[in-house]
């Protein structure tokens, strides 16, 4: 979406408004169309609602994790194969807070539960953001502009981070129970909607709204969008884009950490391998969305989640490769993703 929301620039002398780029709505309609098409196949409306809500919740979580990665690539042409490390670190740090606060977690009050979850999420974001700082300075800074080395170095970072997590927390899976008031479902007639999914959707929408607000309404956002489109020009105008990039990288890592704790609560367990597992999914999402595009990433995440959920319900065997098929289909239609932003 970064490419088609124009700043309303009015030059006083000009009588007619500057030409606007056309809004490209077809990708926006894709998830809606997909959801509607699925109604007759699924049959029961209540199942359809449950599946759709599940896809939206899953999509939001994936979006939170993927958003940083796509901006990082768009801005500096850096593809971080170690992004999964931040997800795993976020999930582990959450256990540090949630385990001592288990009294709050098990209390049957939404506010007490949230009082435990909020500091856990904040600490996760802080730690993974700080790790992002280290990662960028130590690993990525020396290899700017060299894709091969970037891939290798960030892979190495992922290996080391994963092994360090095993060393510190042990190789076993750590159970992370959902807080009491987030268990179970809201029941409307014969439609059941899991409470945690509603929370995930709210958080996802808030994050999405916040990112859009920053990108479209602040000077930093303007610089980021300009940097994604043409880095040299922004540098030539005197902005230190590397510092901007460091900021984006840290925020992206922090969001990955937030995604990590949300995913861990969704699965109700923590394990260092989630980083590696989710990396594949996240890559598919950002490729589908178009590297560098936040809006594309959002739609891509929801599409991937929908295909996984509907596919898993209708043809379980196919669900395993559904993501790949989706990616192939989208790339056939638009070879550079839904919203091609960068000219790379």
């Amino acid at each position, binding site marked *: 979406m970064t490419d088609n929301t124009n700043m309303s620039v009015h030059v006083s002398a000009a009588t007619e408004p500057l030409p606007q780029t056309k809004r490209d709505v077809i990708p926006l309609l894709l998830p809606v169309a997909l959801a509607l098409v699925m109604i007759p196949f699924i049959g029961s409306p209540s199942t359809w609602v449950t599946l759709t809500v599940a896809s939206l919740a899953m999509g939001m979580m994936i979006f939170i994790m993927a958003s940083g990665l796509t901006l990082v690539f768009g801005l500096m042409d850096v593809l971080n194969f170690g992004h999964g490390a931040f997800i795993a670190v976020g999930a582990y740090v959450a256990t540090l807070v949630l385990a001592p606060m288990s009294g709050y977690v098990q209390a049957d009050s939404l506010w007490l539960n949230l009082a435990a979850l909020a500091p856990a999420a904040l600490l996760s974001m802080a730690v993974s953001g700080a790790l992002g700082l280290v990662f960028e300075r130590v690993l990525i800074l020396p290899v700017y502009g060299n894709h*091969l080395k970037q891939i290798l170095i960030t892979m*190495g970072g992922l290996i080391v981070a994963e092994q360090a997590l095993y*060393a510190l927390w042990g190789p076993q899976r750590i159970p992370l129970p959902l807080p009491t008031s987030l268990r179970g479902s809201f029941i409307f007639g014969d439609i059941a909607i899991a409470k945690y999914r509603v929370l995930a959707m709210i958080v996802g929408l808030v994050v999405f709204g916040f990112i859009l607000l920053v990108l479209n309404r602040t000077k930093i956002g303007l610089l980021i969008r300009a940097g994604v489109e043409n880095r040299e020009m922004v540098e030539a105008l005197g902005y230190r884009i590397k510092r901007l990039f460091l900021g984006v990288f840290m925020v992206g890592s922090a969001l990955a950490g937030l995604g990590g704790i949300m995913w861990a609560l969704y699965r109700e367990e923590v394990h260092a391998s989630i980083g*590696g597992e989710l990396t*594949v999914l996240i890559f*598919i999402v950002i490729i589908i969305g178009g590297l560098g595009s936040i809006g594309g990433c959002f739609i891509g995440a929801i599409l991937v989640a929908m295909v996984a959920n509907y596919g898993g319900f209708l043809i379980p065997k196919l669900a*395993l490769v559904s*993501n790949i098929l989706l990616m192939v289909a989208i790339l056939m239609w638009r070879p550079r993703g839904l919203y091609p932003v960068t000219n790379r």
Partner: protein
Amino acid sequence: MMILSGDPPRSRVLSLLLIVIVTLLALAPFLFPGAKAMNVATKICIFALLVASYDLLLGYTGTVSFAHTMFYGIGSYGVAIALYAMGPTWTAVATGIVIGLPLAALVALCIGLFSLRVQAIFFAMITLAVASAFQVLASQLSWLTGGDDGRSFRLPELLRPGTVIIPKDVFGFEFNGRTLTYYIVFVVAAALILTLLRIVNSPFGRVLQAVRENRFRAEALGYRTVFHLTWANVLAALVAACAGVLNALWLRYAGPETLSFTIMIDILLMVVIGGMGTMYGAIIGAAIFILAENYLQSLMGMASKATAGIPVLPDLLHPDRWLLWLGLLFIASVYFFPTGVVGKLRGKN
């Protein structure tokens, strides 16, 4: 010189190291008859081949593929399924090879045509996605692949450990079916590595290196880079599938772990530590890595016990954490000696 395709090691230390490794491997059944040592020796042969084929892609064309274990797995499964379904005959081995290798080549061709036109980074992501889908497929199609248990099978009569070919009283050493299997692995691996060396030193290999250095310029000179890259991808896949066949024959088993991402990471570590863009690096890298995997762990176990009482340190030195240290070594080698052990040794002379 002919056999090395005019590309000798070009370093005295490196030559010496290679001669030592190859001699030890060639004489392994006589020098180290133990089961563990033989497994290590075979693994070094198989991985040297697998890493060499990966180096054709990574080192010579600069493309990062994460689907290499997929081809390795196709080769493994091809032979395993054929031997499992058709019984322990040579026809079954041949069938497995005749089905497995072309299948690997075909898949590589499809991936190449679909995604090698775009940037290296895109190719890396797409291969990662395809490989993970394939891994899931292999563990789910249990009627064919045996699911998570994989397929164990019996080898043809001649290759079984019970078959004595030269009895012990002739040379003071029993040459049995297992020893023969080892030599098949050794000879095929050596032959294929020499073939790869021939390929990278051919005009075709020169074009690959040109593409690595500057794709745009190579294209401007009139080379069809997509054609060359796709060919390199197919060749690498074929050799990887051969390594898979050898692995299945040695283990008498093929399972989903041959496809796992862990092995992919191992290969990456071996290529980079050994030295990208040099076929000799594959041999050195595989030898260092597999020796470390098998013997560094016991060393770390001792270190871990020695440091008991100090917080965190024993956990960091725990034998299962050996990959942590190799990961650090990997990062260090990408920075400080990007040409790996081989490049370092060559640089000195």
